[in-house]
């Protein structure tokens, strides 16, 4: 099969993306060796999922309907000024929380004895996300005495 390197050369030689892409597009349209090295539409279809694969298989409506109702209710209940007050209150609460954390850190840095990390016990016996099995990770950093939990869905990668 004849090989054309013009496409590969254009990429480093033309730094302006728009020009480079325009030149590449024009070259590909006219260069038959370049076109021969491309997968055809049937090959692409054979490795990708299409709408037909999901026809009648996935009903998202029940999941979305509840959210739409909630969104609709929230929209009718909250006039603009009320939303502004909510935003102001949330910002104030955030500031207070940040101030609290800073004060606590400052306090701990001034000789008070912090609670021992080993005293804190966190046990997760099972984890679910939307009633589906999930996997939980408990992370504990060495220095900071911080523990955080990450829960992740377990079903990965289904083929077409």
């Amino acid at each position, binding site marked *: 099969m004849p090989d054309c390197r013009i496409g590969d050369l254009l990429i480093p030689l033309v730094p302006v993306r728009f020009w480079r892409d325009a030149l590449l597009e024009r070259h590909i349209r006219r260069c038959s060796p370049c076109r021969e090295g491309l997968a055809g539409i049937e090959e692409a279809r054979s490795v990708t999922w299409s709408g037909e694969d999901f026809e009648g*298989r996935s009903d998202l409506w029940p999941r979305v309907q509840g959210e739409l109702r909630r969104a609709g209710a929230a929209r009718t209940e909250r006039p603009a000024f009320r939303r502004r007050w909510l935003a102001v209150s949330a910002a104030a609460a955030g500031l207070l929380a940040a101030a609290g954390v800073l004060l606590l850190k400052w306090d701990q840095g001034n000789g008070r004895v912090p609670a021992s990390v080993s005293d804190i016990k966190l046990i997760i016996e099972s984890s679910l996300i939307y009633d589906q099995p999930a996997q939980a990770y408990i992370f504990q950093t060495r220095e900071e005495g911080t523990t955080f939990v990450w829960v992740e869905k377990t079903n990965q990668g289904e083929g077409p």
Partner: protein
Amino acid sequence: MEDRELVQGCLEGRVEFYREIMEKYGAQAMALSMNMLMDLQDAEDACQEAFLRTYRNLGRFDSGRSFKNWFFAILANVCRDALRGRRRRRALMEKALKEDAVATVVRDPGAPLALDLGPSVLARLSPQERLCLHLWANEECSANEMAAVLGCSRPTASVYLHRARKKLKAALNEEKHA
């Protein structure tokens, strides 16, 4: 019923019209998000989020444009966000595992720990390339329509598609000779 009429109905508060939109585009949306995310649950989550985002922004929809392309653009953005989230999660996991900071792993019995994608031919392409390939092969989009979904220029969309087809051909040839 035309998309424009369905959108108008939704804007007038008739939620059942939105159900019709979802039934019309649900399967196509799942296919697009599966090709980008390659995970069934993530794809369902992305579709749900995209349909909600679309509903909230129906008022901004320009009826002179194609609803399908507008919705696909929103869905592609949601999928990109999901991929960014996945990358962040992986980086966090890798860091935590490297630092030996994982105290406990509570595992669902029988569930695999693997986070990597399967060795599929499609996985060799970038998500953007997979999106282009899908739009071209399954939705039969033109370069202009692809550009509208991707939010880029037409030549850039063509180049993405060219790269995707080139990589796919190489991968298929490799598989054939293996």
